[in-house]
């Protein structure tokens, strides 16, 4: 049997085996090498590129908080806006659209075209102010080439100029620049959050728990003002400033018990929604940042100190004849000589001679201590930016003349809020509250300025000021007993000394006089129409504002049946005026 040669059984030649193994080894090296290159050499680059294609960082928006009044009415709000921008060369390529866009933007199309042509080389030009989303949508829906919108947030002030100086305003980047916007920046500002997500090809988020940084929206700030009273106060103040041809004015209404300011306004004003007006002098909140000499309005505080020390009694008689009083080189004068008067008369006729004599009897230290009691030596601490500090020199620096002038309110300065705080103490039976502009937080407990009996006695005297023969009968509010005091302060002249022609007309008062709920201050700066006395210029504003405020806050009248009213048959209560009015008719 010949052996059949089986070709497959032939021994494999050695080189073939080596070749196959070699090829396989080469393949393995190539694969491993490529893997090495991708996994180790180019790893970072590839991960970055991959992430770039589907991992996105998404911003979580955080809005700035709103500012609201005590009843929740918005005074400052962030709302979305859109700003239109264009690529000039793209838009110019389609002339029909240029005029359509110009029309919606409220610009003349020839002017708009020139505007674009001048900027043809740029690839990004803003062509509108921030618009509401609706308006922006109308422009975008034209489908014009190269027209886009950029969304952002803008700050709106719905109450406009009525609350402008108090609320302040924000800059372009949304930071508070003035007023409460600045003071409460840390509360109002929101912190934008961030999250990293994976998006699929259609842009949908498919995974979002990669990294997460929480957004912190800004908190709301609640102010103590009541927008209804604020509006009323602003309207009357603006009216009075215009009528008296005055340089400016301010008004403050506060709650006597809590020290919460219900209205605070100044003239001239400005509209915070109009960027151009933000540089005017109207942006200053005069009632907080301006200090002035208080004049006769401090006489009741001097009398309170005199009563408190027991040196004078309400019935004490003071001889003011002949209407002048010499203290060293100074001659104190009364406009009308008053003769021998008691303390009530001193206040109701605002006798400078009487006040100076009371002050000289008390002595410098006691007068100074009295003003200190009413907080004239310390700031009001409202937290409002730029709050003015009072200037009250130490009594050790006072001479005879300084003591006399301080007795009727010259030689030291304070802000409107100081006066309001001091009168709130008189109104609140001697307890002086902390003046507050922002609600929430812990209020400091009130300080005792004078005893309750002294405060009541002074209040009773102050009712005479508003009586028909007092200096401020125009401050009377129908149905309420009002206690208050006028002041007509000469302003310091540029040349030194006091200007005879430039005055500040002041009225400060409270109601209802028996248990006051509200204290109000009106200052008209340099009235130039004929009258300049506080009782003629400022008192009517006080009357109108307080009447409205008392009605809005439903403060019960305390005037009983003392007022001579028309007989019943002739009176008709307006519908919806409430029970109080019917009772008195």
């Amino acid at each position: 049997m010949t052996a059949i040669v089986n070709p497959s059984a032939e021994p494999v030649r050695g080189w073939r085996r080596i070749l196959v193994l070699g090829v396989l080894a080469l393949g393995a090296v190539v694969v491993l090498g490529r893997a090495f290159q991708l996994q180790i050499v180019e790893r970072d680059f590839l991960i970055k590129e991959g992430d770039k294609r589907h991992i996105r960082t998404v911003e979580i928006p955080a809005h700035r908080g709103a500012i609201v009044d005590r009843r929740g009415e918005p005074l400052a709000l962030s709302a979305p806006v859109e700003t239109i921008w264009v690529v000039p060369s793209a838009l110019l390529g389609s002339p029909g659209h240029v005029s359509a866009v110009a029309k919606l933007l409220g610009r003349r199309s020839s002017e708009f075209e020139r505007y674009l042509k001048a900027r043809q080389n740029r690839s990004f030009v803003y062509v509108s102010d921030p618009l509401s989303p609706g308006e922006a949508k109308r422009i975008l829906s034209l489908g014009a080439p190269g027209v886009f919108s950029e969304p952002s947030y803008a700050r709106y002030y719905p109450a406009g100029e009525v609350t402008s100086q108090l609320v302040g305003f924000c800059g372009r980047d949304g930071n508070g620049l003035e007023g409460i916007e600045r003071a409460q920046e840390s509360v109002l500002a929101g912190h934008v959050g961030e999250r990293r997500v994976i998006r699929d090809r259609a842009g949908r988020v498919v995974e979002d728990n990669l990294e997460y940084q929480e957004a912190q929206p800004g908190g709301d700030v609640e102010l103590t003002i009541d927008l209804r009273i604020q509006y009323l106060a602003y309207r009357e103040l603006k009216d009075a400033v215009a009528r008296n041809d005055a340089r400016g004015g301010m008004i403050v209404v506060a709650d006597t018990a809590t020290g919460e300011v219900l209205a605070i306004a100044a003239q001239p004003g400005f509209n915070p929604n109009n960027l151009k007006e933000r540089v005017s002098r109207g942006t200053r909140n005069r009632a907080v940042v301006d200090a002035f000499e208080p004049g006769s309005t401090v006489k009741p505080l001097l009398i309170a100190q005199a009563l408190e020390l027991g040196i004078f009694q309400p019935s004490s008689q003071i001889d003011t004849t002949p209407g002048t009083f010499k203290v060293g080189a100074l001659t104190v004068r009364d406009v009308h000589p008053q003769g021998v008067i008691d303390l009530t008369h001193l206040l109701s006729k605002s006798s400078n001679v009487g006040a100076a004599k009371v002050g000289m009897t008390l002595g410098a230290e006691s007068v100074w201590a009295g003003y200190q009691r009413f907080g004239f030596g310390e700031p009001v601490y409202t937290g409002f930016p730029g709050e003015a500090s009072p200037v009250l020199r130490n009594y050790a620096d006072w001479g005879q003349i300084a003591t006399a002038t301080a007795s009727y309110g010259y030689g030291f300065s304070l802000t409107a809020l100081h006066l309001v705080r001091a009168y709130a103490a008189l109104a609140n039976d001697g307890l002086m509250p902390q003046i507050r502009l922002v609600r929430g937080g812990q209020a400091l407990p009130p300080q005792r300025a004078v005893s309750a009996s002294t405060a009541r006695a002074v209040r009773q005297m102050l009712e005479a000021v508003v009586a028909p023969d007092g200096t401020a009968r125009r401050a009377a509010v129908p149905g309420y007993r009002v206690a208050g005091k006028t002041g007509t302060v000469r302003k310091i002249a540029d040349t030194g000394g006091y200007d005879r022609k430039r005055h500040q007309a002041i009225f400060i008062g409270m109601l209802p006089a028996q248990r006051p709920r509200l204290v109000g201050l009106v200052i008209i700066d340099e009235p130039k129409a004929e009258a300049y006395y506080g009782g003629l210029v400022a008192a009517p504003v006080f009357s109108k504002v307080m009447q409205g405020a008392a009605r809005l806050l439903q403060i019960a009248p305390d005037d009983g049946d003392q007022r001579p009213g028309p007989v019943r048959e002739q009176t008709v209560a307006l519908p919806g005026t409430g029970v109080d009015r019917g009772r008195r008719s």
Partner: protein
Amino acid sequence: MRRGQLLLPLMLAVAVFASALVVVRTKHENRALVGELDGLRAEHERLQMEWAQLQLEEATLAHNNRVEKIAREQLGMVEPDDYVIVDAQP
């Protein structure tokens, strides 16, 4: 004995396969929910914007200046003062 030995790996293989299907399904559901969440977030954002706009609109319409003007000029209203004397003629 032999059959029992084969059954266990077979059952495990089926279980692995089933579990793999569940993973796929869960993953899909997860993505769908994430997508929904994202949509709702956008909706929330949009509604907040709308709320701010509506508040603004309300405040503008209810501005005291405007209310006063309409009350006085169109509706002939006056502030309730203390007393009003009307003519009692028939």
